[in-house]
């Protein structure tokens, strides 16, 4: 029960951060990405604020308990082709729409059709990826031309 409530609270806090910073408005996002137009540094400010707080928090956790280094642990996996190609596809979608997953889900609450279409398609993309992963696991990489 506790885990469910904290998740709800963290989600709400995360969304509040996106709303306050204006990142739920895709034009604010593309204003940062558009270096050839009227550039706005705001997205960098959001990233900076978020990383500063989270980085400090994780460091504090690791310092508090020297034996528990997991607070700063990463997956330890190597940079591979899937990481780069996935980020590439994401970058195209992000650039076209100005939506990444968080702001898109917050924007669903507007009731407008646009965010609904985006999130529906995004969920379909997640399902499609799961299907591809499953196929690779089941039949091997050679069964798919991609990757």
């Amino acid at each position: 029960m506790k885990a469910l409530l904290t998740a709800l609270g963290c989600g709400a806090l995360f969304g509040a951060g996106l709303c306050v910073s204006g990142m739920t408005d895709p034009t604010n996002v593309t204003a940062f990405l558009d270096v050839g137009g009227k550039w706005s540094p705001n997205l960098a400010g959001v990233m900076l604020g978020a990383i500063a707080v989270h980085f400090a928090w994780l460091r504090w956790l690791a310092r508090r308990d020297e034996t528990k280094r997991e607070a700063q642990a990463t997956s330890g996996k190597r940079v591979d082709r899937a990481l780069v190609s996935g980020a590439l596809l994401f970058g195209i979608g992000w650039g076209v729409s100005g939506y990444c997953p968080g702001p898109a889900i917050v924007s669903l609450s507007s009731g407008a059709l646009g965010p609904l279409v985006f999130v529906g398609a995004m969920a379909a993309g997640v399902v499609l990826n799961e299907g591809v992963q499953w196929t690779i696991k089941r039949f091997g990489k050679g069964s798919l031309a991609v990757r």
Partner: protein
Amino acid sequence: MLLALIGGALIGLSASLYWSLNRKIAGISGILGGALFLRGRERWVRVLFLLGLFGSGLGFARFTNRVPAPDLPLLALAFAGLLVGFGTRMSGGCTSGHGVCGLSRRSPRSFVAVLTFMVTAGVTVFVVRHLLKLWVPT
């Protein structure tokens, strides 16, 4: 810019609390994947995070009554959504998972991912707006 920093700090605080209280990474694409494919309690934790995210938008709209809706053709939004969903799951994170959480952990994978999607998104916007001259904002 001040609002951007404050909003960012709230996001960082959310990621920090989610890690400390739930031992989970606050990456939205991963949470969405979990909400769709995990079972039982683990699924519900993620569903509630997403509900909180959705609810914050409702709450915020009550105070500002400013509902940002994209000024884009629906087909473009559908195309973009599909790429975002597929791509973020393929690379294991989005702006939050790789961007906020991964960079805070100084993860080399996240560094490469963020660099890749930032540059790609910048190039995409340039191509869409300045070369193809599709939807240019007023």
